[in-house]
């Protein structure tokens, strides 16, 4: 929200410097967002307070915070000159809550006076003519968007609100043609569309220098529909910024009165009451504030006199009071007040948070509920780092892979390169490897502790997040050196985690219908008994963290004697496409005391592999 100090000072008296004023706004909830330029504060507006999109709304809170008085403009106008006679027809009642109108005849359109121009320009709005400027002025002053149209440009003295139709277009005030749809609230007269409801008016009925008769309106609409429509049509303006928030229908009357007064003063003419479509009048909301609640939440006692003073300055009405509580009528413009604590918030913030002292919690610590898995992941990180691996974190978002039916696809991603979630970490981690390559590392060892994401159906319960540890290694001396590195790291990790009895089995892969199941020796599965711990590839591994936790572990063996160590060499014969994994399992059975089995020699001839394994045994 832009807040020109010259405008703000119409409603408050303050001797504070611009920086001091900005500090007060920051404390009370409107943080200074950018450096102060030309005595205009740019304040960060959060979504809740529709009334903070008005100068008076900001001034009211400032006055309460600063202990000064809010001077509201006087809205008194003479009696109307009868009825305006323009019909209002609402054919989309679910989208229009109030449509408040007045008719003016015999006005003189011209330039605005300097004081209006100065204020609008410092706010950042262009000045057009006195009528348009007045609608903008009142919008910024009170937060209620307004709209004036030239009645001589109407073919029929009637305004209709209805849903748009496919193929219809609105010619906006800025001269753009905007196609509307059935979700769009449009304003029509006769056969013409004269506006997109609560978003933008049309050039067709715009007020110009020849205009003498106008219809002025201030409406209240379904804010949700307006926000969606404005995003869909990609129209953002000062009107939408307000109508998409929770404005209150009562505000339309205040705005109409204020605009009437300004029009009569600055453009002359006469005004006529016209239809005020307001089928469900909003009732004032009453709430109870317990004084004790201020202490429960804020931790401090605020003197009841001070509480009442703050609330009165913020325009709450005290309906009933006792020593324990106040019954309050919530100001209509405070559409953000939902619960008693919101009133407590008002008191604490106007009292200034800096008046709440610090106090450390002194109750006993609750029971520890950190999941085992999280500590375990940290342990894995430490071990892998000690084994020389670098940890990286890559974004889990990736591209849609049409072949993978289990992939989770994002319906509305803006970025077509990140429109799905990864089903393996390697695909998002591998680009990091490429960076290391560019830096000319000769040995690269990377890992990520992360998740992969799958869906097996359409329901939320069908979504699985699997925690994995992914390792990728590259040794530029070659594939064997790379693989040795991977295996050593993995063995080191298992030893440190206390995981023993690990076996490696080639994955069975159904390559095509003409072939029988083939063993895929590029990927092997890592098991402990029947528990699948993960998989090992030539240049990396994937481990399933939850299964690592479940695996049987034993403490690191510590011995206090010098054992007799012996070994025995065993030569096995394999077919070329066979792997050693199964042989190792058999050897482990044959040599139950085997501590380590190492490959010491390999000889290949035709379709055979002769492998010599050394089995180390010890007492």
């Amino acid at each position, binding site marked *: 929200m832009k807040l020109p100090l010259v405008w703000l000072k119409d409603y408050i008296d303050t001797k504070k410097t611009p920086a001091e004023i900005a500090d007060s706004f920051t404390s009370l909830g409107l943080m200074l967002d950018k450096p102060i330029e030309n005595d205009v504060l740019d304040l960060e507006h959060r979504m809740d307070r529709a009334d903070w999109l008005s100068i008076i709304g900001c001034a009211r809170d400032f006055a309460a915070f600063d202990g000064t008085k809010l001077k509201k403009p006087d809205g008194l106008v003479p009696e109307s000159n009868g009825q305006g006679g323009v019909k209002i027809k609402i054919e989309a009642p679910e989208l229009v809550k109030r449509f408040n109108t007045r008719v003016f005849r015999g006005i003189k359109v011209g330039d605005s006076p300097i004081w209006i121009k100065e204020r609008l320009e410092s706010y950042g709005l262009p000045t057009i003519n006195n009528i348009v400027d007045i609608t903008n002025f009142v919008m910024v002053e009170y937060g209620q968007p307004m709209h004036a149209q030239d009645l001589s440009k109407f073919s029929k003295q009637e305004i209709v609100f209805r849903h748009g139709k496919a193929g219809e277009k609105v010619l906006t005030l800025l001269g753009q043609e905007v196609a509307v749809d059935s979700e769009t609230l449009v304003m029509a007269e006769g056969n013409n569309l004269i506006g997109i409801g609560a978003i933008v008016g049309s050039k067709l009925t715009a007020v110009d220098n020849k205009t003498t008769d106008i219809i002025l309106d201030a409406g209240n609409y379904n804010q949700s529909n307006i*926000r969606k429509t404005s*995003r869909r049509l990609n129209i953002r303006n000062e009107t939408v910024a307000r109508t998409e928030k929770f404005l209150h229908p009562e505000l339309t009357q205040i705005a109409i009165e204020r605009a009437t007064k300004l029009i009569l003063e600055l453009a002359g003419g006469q005004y006529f009451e016209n239809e005020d479509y307001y089928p469900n009048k909003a009732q004032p909301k009453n709430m109870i504030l317990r004084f004790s609640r201020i202490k429960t939440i804020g931790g401090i006692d605020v003197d009841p006199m001070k509480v009442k003073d703050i609330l009165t300055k913020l325009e709450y009405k005290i309906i009933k009071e006792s020593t324990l509580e106040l019954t309050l009528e919530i100001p209509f413009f405070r559409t953000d007040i939902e619960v008693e604590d919101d009133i407590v*918030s008002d008191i604490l913030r106007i009292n200034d948070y800096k008046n709440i002292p610090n106090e450390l*919690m002194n*109750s006993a610590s609750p029971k520890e509920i950190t999941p085992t898995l999280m500590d375990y992941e940290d342990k894995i990180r430490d071990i892998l780092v000690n084994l020389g691996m670098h940890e990286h974190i890559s974004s889990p978002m990736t591209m849609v892979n049409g072949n993978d039916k289990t992939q989770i696809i994002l319906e509305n991603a803006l970025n077509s390169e990140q429109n799905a979630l990864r089903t393996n970490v390697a695909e998002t981690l591998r680009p990091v490897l490429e960076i290391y390559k560019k830096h000319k590392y000769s040995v690269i060892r990377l890992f990520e502790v992360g998740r992969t994401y799958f869906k097996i159906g359409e329901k939320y319960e069908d979504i699985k997040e699997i925690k994995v540890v992914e390792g990728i290694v590259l040794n530029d001396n070659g594939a064997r050196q790379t693989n040795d590195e991977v295996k050593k790291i993995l063995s080191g990790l298992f030893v440190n985690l206390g995981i023993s009895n690990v076996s490696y089995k080639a994955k069975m892969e159904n390559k095509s219908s003409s072939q029988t199941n083939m063993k895929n020796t590029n990927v092997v599965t890592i098991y402990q008994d029947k528990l699948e711990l993960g998989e090992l590839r030539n240049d990396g591994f994937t481990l399933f963290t939850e299964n690592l936790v479940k695996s049987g572990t034993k403490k690191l063996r510590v011995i206090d004697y010098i054992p007799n160590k012996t070994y025995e060499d065993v030569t096995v014969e394999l077919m070329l496409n066979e792997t050693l994994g199964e042989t190792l399992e058999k050897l482990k059975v044959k040599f139950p005391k085997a501590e380590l089995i190492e490959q010491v020699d390999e000889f290949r001839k035709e379709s055979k592999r002769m492998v010599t394994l050394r089995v180390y045994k010890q007492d």
Partner: protein
Amino acid sequence: MDLNKKIEDIKKELENDLQNAKNGSNANNSTLDEIYVKYFSKKHGVITELIKELPKLSSDERKEFGPIINDLQDEYKNRIGHEKILQEKEQYEDPTIDLTMPLPPKESGYLHPTTQVIREMNKFFRYHGFSVFEGPEVETAEFNFRKLNLPEDHPATDLQDTLFVTQPEILLRTHTSSVESRVLTNYRPPIRVVIPGKCFRNETPNKTNSSFFYQYQGVVVDKGITMKHLKATLELVHKFLFGEDTILRFRYKYYPEVSPGMGVDMQCKFCKGVGCDVCKQRGWIEMLGSGMIHYNTLKSCGIDPEVYSGFAFGMGLDRHVMQKFGISDIRKLYGGGLVYKY
């Protein structure tokens, strides 16, 4: 006498063995170790055997040979120990070594900067009685929005902000508050948890905003928790992270899941609040959002807001990580261009 001769023979043999160990090309520890085992092993050591014979001798012989054999044992145990020390000395005192010339470090790995910061913070909070918690990254609108008092119409639920798996119910969590609502639903007070985790938003990535980022959330619920405790906790953690001279500013700020809400800024350490490029001329740097957990949030999670109260805070971790490690682009932080240099 027979025994005398035997002792002399053993001595000779031992001296010979020691000499060999010293001169031999394979003069290494294992050889000395082997000598030790040969003479002193509990089962078959040559001198051990000799000692075992002692009880079989007559009392006169025992008087004569006992001390001799004991001396023999002491002398050679010492000799072997001494030789070992000399050998080791020789081994490490190579005159060609130049101690003043450093070498590149032995390779070791590093943790990701974000992990390092998360650990530092977890350490602080665990010391103060917090548990570390986590939850699903693919979430339901129930936990991500509704339980946190974010109505359907709230702008944060707009398509622009949330990445949906299946609109409008299944989504990628937009904040770690989703885990807060899970903890509040599944555990009973007293509760003290922190939640580091990945979050997602539908944004076109640039230097400072990524569609994937990290948040760090804290949640406390107990009887008698007030804003005093929130302020003190935040003051403490900021001083822990940024030093004792840290100055904080507490101001009202709206967040739908808390009431009252509170924004926390740290005075810029570079300009001491005057305004500079680091703080974009503000003098203050926004650190986090916080507040007292909304009445409706507690209620929707099954905690009686008339009995319990609590606070929550959430901060983006990435900016802090980037500042600490001098990284200029968030996209590089997560998979796009970091390498760790020794």
